[in-house]
């Protein structure tokens, strides 16, 4: 199955991102000419109605994946509760399977044993997918700065970091709504464009290639042949 990716943005390298930032500064200072201004506006906002409608729909129906790791998970459960009802925004459908989810709320400390598991789950999610690092431990190292914890930025792209230990449910709500406005208005801004982080899917290496993990005798690779990109 072929995956056709719409190259919505032309930002591919950090230099281009920097150039865009400088252009934004010029725009704010009023130094752009008419033609440049028009180009800038066109590159920055979604002009087609269909794009806008899709973005609106996507933003209003984010399915979070149930990914509670530690204390922040208890506060994440609180926003599903009746006081800070996340269902009024349409996000109450927590999906257990990552294939059905499009938002990963990484709530809790990520230990070095858990990091590959998180990455695998993130890879199994389908595009477009978003990640929120909830709490201090997943955003940075948090309260614990030691051998056992990995900040989430080290192994997966995060869109929104919500600080707090644990963040109040209102704070997490603010972070989720910020993500929603990002999805609805300008998906091109932020972390993922800057680090060219789109397209993180799980790729099963073909048997015999160096990337393949050794498997037991009795295990069967159900994906024979060349490495395929699974959507």
């Amino acid at each position, binding site marked *: 199955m072929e995956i056709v990716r719409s190259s919505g943005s032309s930002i591919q390298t950090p230099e281009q991102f920097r150039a865009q930032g400088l252009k934004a500064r010029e725009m704010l200072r009023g130094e752009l000419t008419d033609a440049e201004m028009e180009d800038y506006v066109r590159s920055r906002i979604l002009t087609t109605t269909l794009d806008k409608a899709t973005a609106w729909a996507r933003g209003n129906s984010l399915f979070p994946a149930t990914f509670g790791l530690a204390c922040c998970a208890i506060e994440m459960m609180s926003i599903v509760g009746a006081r800070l009802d996340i269902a009024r925004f349409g996000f109450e459908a927590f999906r257990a399977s990552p294939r059905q989810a499009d938002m990963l709320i990484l709530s809790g400390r990520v230990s070095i044993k858990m990091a590959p598991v998180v990455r695998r789950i993130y890879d199994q999610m389908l595009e477009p997918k978003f990640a929120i690092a909830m709490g201090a431990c997943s955003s940075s190292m948090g309260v614990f*700065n030691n*051998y*056992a914890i990995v900040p989430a930025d080290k192994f997966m792209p995060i869109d929104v970091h919500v600080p707090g230990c644990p963040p109040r449910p209102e704070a997490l709500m603010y972070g989720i709504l910020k993500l929603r406005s990002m999805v609805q208005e300008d998906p091109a801004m932020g972390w993922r464009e800057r680090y060219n982080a789109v397209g993180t899917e799980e790729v099963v290496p073909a048997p015999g290639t160096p990337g393949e993990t050794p498997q037991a005798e009795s295990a069967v690779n159900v994906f024979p042949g060349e490495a395929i990109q699974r959507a």
Partner: protein
Amino acid sequence: MPDAAALAVLSQDLLATGGVLATRHEHGKARLDVEPAAVVDTLAALKAQGFRSLMSVHGLDYYPEEPRLGVQYELLDMTARDRITVATRVTIADPHVPSVTPAWPTAEHQEREIFDMFGVIFDGHPDLRRILMPDDYEGHPQRRDFPIGGEPVLFTHNEKDVPGWIE
């Protein structure tokens, strides 16, 4: 808690079995220091005295004093509502302690944790492997000379040195 007199009586019985190095009574609690080889017998003798529950097995690192690694057993007598500690110490060069898991099944995970964190090898443990760290981790993290690790805290003076910093 057995008071000092009861502790003396207790240790008299145990001294007969051998292996008891010292007895201590601090903070209202009795404590027996034993040699590693005598651990299983001491715990069995205490079980016969009524301390039938092993509540905790934990390890510690006495760096820089030698012998460095210590293992302590916390016993509880539910009928008499008493506690007693049994402590032993081993060196890093020869970190072998006989496992008490066959007689006290509760020690299984706890001894694995001590092995994982300190490197004490429990002879006779049914399944001695790492429990908290990944299986292929090198080193024993809770030893006192193992570095704490972690990420450097970013300030403006060192943020440019972080790999991936984009000017």
